[in-house]
């Protein structure tokens, strides 16, 4: 491979322009290395070369994120790089956010490898660690000597298309992406070893640190159902017979929107369940058991419910990841709101 062309992003401070008083300088493109770029090039040797450095004031960037990102992207494009590096930002909050945000924009727009580096408590790390490889640094520029070779090493690997090892080996901040690995011991042995350590008060390492759990408080009760426009949404897999959208029996990759017009009740001729996580016999015999159309139609006639939305939404909540479930809910609730729906019955199985 020929020499890798690198564009490097730094702030006004590391460019030697000045501190806080110069934080409003606009984006500027300079040829070659500036400031910390030299430490990176020392590691690159003949493998890669910093062809240009983009400099931007931290205040300017954070106060004009959209326009500054666009300006910087233009500058990066001109240099046609193979690799983009930002920082290290250490514990400088606005610099960290700028590094993360610019890296993400370059990655999305130019589709080239990007990498930045900062202290794990930098707000930029929290914002962008899911999207980017962020090499972990100490909290001040005094740790540059340690940070530069790590950053340059990871950057070269990415530019060469090599797969990175784990965050501990490579020195980057975990993105929270789970990958399967085969260990020396069985799970049962690991559990007993962990238990003995826990009993003895020795340190042990959990294999899955518990996440901050996203609990959704229920909305306040609907005051007057006789005026509500109700929609039916289910994760119990009730779909028109034949499952036209091929919603998977487990780990559903989509949800469906289906017309209820003309149906007073659901029957085994008209609907079925796509769900693979429970005995389908009773749901298929009478799909109203999972999607209670029959009762809702009655209650609309009786005036207890204002009206029923024309469509129902269905997916399969079986092995479906929390992230996907959240995505489907965000998308279909936009639809529901646009259609004037004011209440939803969510049925699960």
């Amino acid at each position, binding site marked *: 491979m020929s020499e890798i062309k690198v564009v490097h992003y730094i702030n006004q401070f590391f460019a030697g322009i000045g501190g806080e008083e110069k934080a409003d300088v606009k984006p500027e493109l300079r040829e070659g290395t500036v400031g910390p770029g030299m430490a990176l090039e020392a590691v690159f040797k003949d493998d890669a070369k910093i062809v240009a450095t983009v400099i931007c004031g931290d205040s300017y960037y954070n106060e004009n994120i959209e326009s500054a990102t666009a300006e910087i992207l233009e500058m990066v494009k001109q240099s046609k790089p193979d690799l983009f590096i930002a920082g290290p930002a250490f514990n400088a909050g606005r610099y960290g956010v700028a590094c993360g945000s610019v890296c993400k924009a370059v990655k999305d727009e130019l589709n080239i490898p990007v990498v930045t580096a900062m202290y794990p408590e930098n707000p930029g790390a929290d914002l962008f660690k*899911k999207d980017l490889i962020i090499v972990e640094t100490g909290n001040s520029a005094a740790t540059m000597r340690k940070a530069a070779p790590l950053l340059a090493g990871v950057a070269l690997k990415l530019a060469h298309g090599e797969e*990175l090892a*784990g*965050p501990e080996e490579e020195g980057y901040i*975990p*993105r*929270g*992406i*789970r*990958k*399967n*690995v*085969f*260990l*020396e*011991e*069985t*799970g*049962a*042995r*690991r*559990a*007993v070893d*962990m*238990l*003995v350590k*826990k*009993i003895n008060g020795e340190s*042990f390492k*959990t*294999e*899955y*640190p*518990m*996440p901050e*759990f*996203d609990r959704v408080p229920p909305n306040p009760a609907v005051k007057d159902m006789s005026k509500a426009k109700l929609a039916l949404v289910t994760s119990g897999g009730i779909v028109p017979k034949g499952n036209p959208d*091929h919603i*998977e*029996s*487990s*780990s559903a*990759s989509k949800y469906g929107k289906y017309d209820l017009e003309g149906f007073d009740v659901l029957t085994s001729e008209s609907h079925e369940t796509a769900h*693979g*996580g*429970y*005995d*389908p*016999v*009773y749901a298929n015999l009478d799909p109203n058991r999972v999607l209670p159309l029959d009762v809702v139609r009655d209650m609309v006639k009786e005036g207890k419910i204002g009206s029923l939305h024309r469509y129902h939404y269905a997916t399969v*909540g*079986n*092995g*479906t*990841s*929390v*992230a*996907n479930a959240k995505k489907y809910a965000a998308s279909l609730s936009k639809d529901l709101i646009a259609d004037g729906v004011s209440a939803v019955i969510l049925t699960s199985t």
Partner: protein
Amino acid sequence: MRLELGKIKINDVQFGDEMKVDKGTLYVNKAAIAELVLEDEHIKSVEVELAKPGEETRITPVKDVIEPRVKVSGNGGVFPGLINKVATVGEGRTHVLSGAAVVTCGRIVGFQEGIIDMSGPGAEYTPFSKLNNICLVIEPADNLLQHDYEAAARMAGLKAAALIGKAGLDATPDEVEVYETKTLKESTAELPGLPRVAYVYMLQTQGLLHDTYVYGVDAKKIVPTILYPTEVMDGAIASGNCVSACDKNTTYHHQNNPVIKEMYANHGKDFNFVGVIVTNENVYLADKERSSDWSAKLCEYLGLDAAIISQEGFGNPDTDLIMNCKKIEEKGVKTVIITNEYAGRDGASQSLADADPKADAVVTGGNSNELITLPAMKRVIGTLAFTDRIAGSFDGSMKPDGSIEAEIQVITGATNEIGFNKMSAVSY
């Protein structure tokens, strides 16, 4: 209670006129097995086929895997309450045809049946690729409802395993493992300084094809109770469920529960392993509250210092796992939980459907959503007709060239939650 497990190593399985073990080879009589299975009018036909390690063979859709065992001495017989009369098992001597298994497969019951590849990349994920498998390809009677078919297939597997197990009755074991659990009073007196620990064994009981049997009782109808660990080795617990293949505990898993085995290994040195608390994973909130209250109460009653809690299944049972963990920790009992993950195909999602900071010691069996490509195999035992629809696959999983692209969820035992395998997951 003291149990001797006589392990008869089986290196090969062949068809023969009589059921016997000769120099490590198990001979099975095809006609006798078929005749026994066909006693059940719910089964129209059965094919008996053999699958051995290293073969280019795929078995699917797999329902259950059972290890053939026979009671040589002591109370009762294998699978009490199901195959033999209800009698308390777990003492005396039991012979094990180690390295052999009965696999029930054939037409789908409920989309949560799995794949066992005897070679190739898929074989790495399932412990059953290392066994000499006697496969029952079952065809149900016409118009049989799913749950009746499940019951018929379950009993066919257990009956066949009990019949084959008898071949080990007079065989000389290659090794004899001895497991003993004394009464609480005796073990406390003998091991006065050691912390007391137990195993909280959660059984899949969500119902509608997700059931487990304890001494023949449907476990969703039990309240948490205590077993001697050796009872489990004699088949006190049998699987009857179609939860996703990767994390269902087959009957084989129950018979060979590795948590029990590993806790015995440290018993008397690091702690006093006093017993097993079995509990369930019902779907009603009242049942979840009652069962987790009781499992915590039993931990307290036994005066435990620590416990290992294992889960079966995913999603809804995550709540039972977290409730058990939280309530047991609140009793001052330290816990380690064993679970697995559904972090999405990209691994970026939150892994469990429930969480609590008290669950600070977790062992994971890996991310079940991770994708794998299973190359075509020369021989299929069962049918590929349902491959696009089993849990973990999707429309187009089955490729024209016979290969399968799917989540490892489809592989029987891949992300087991009683710690049977060496797989784990790490954060990248």
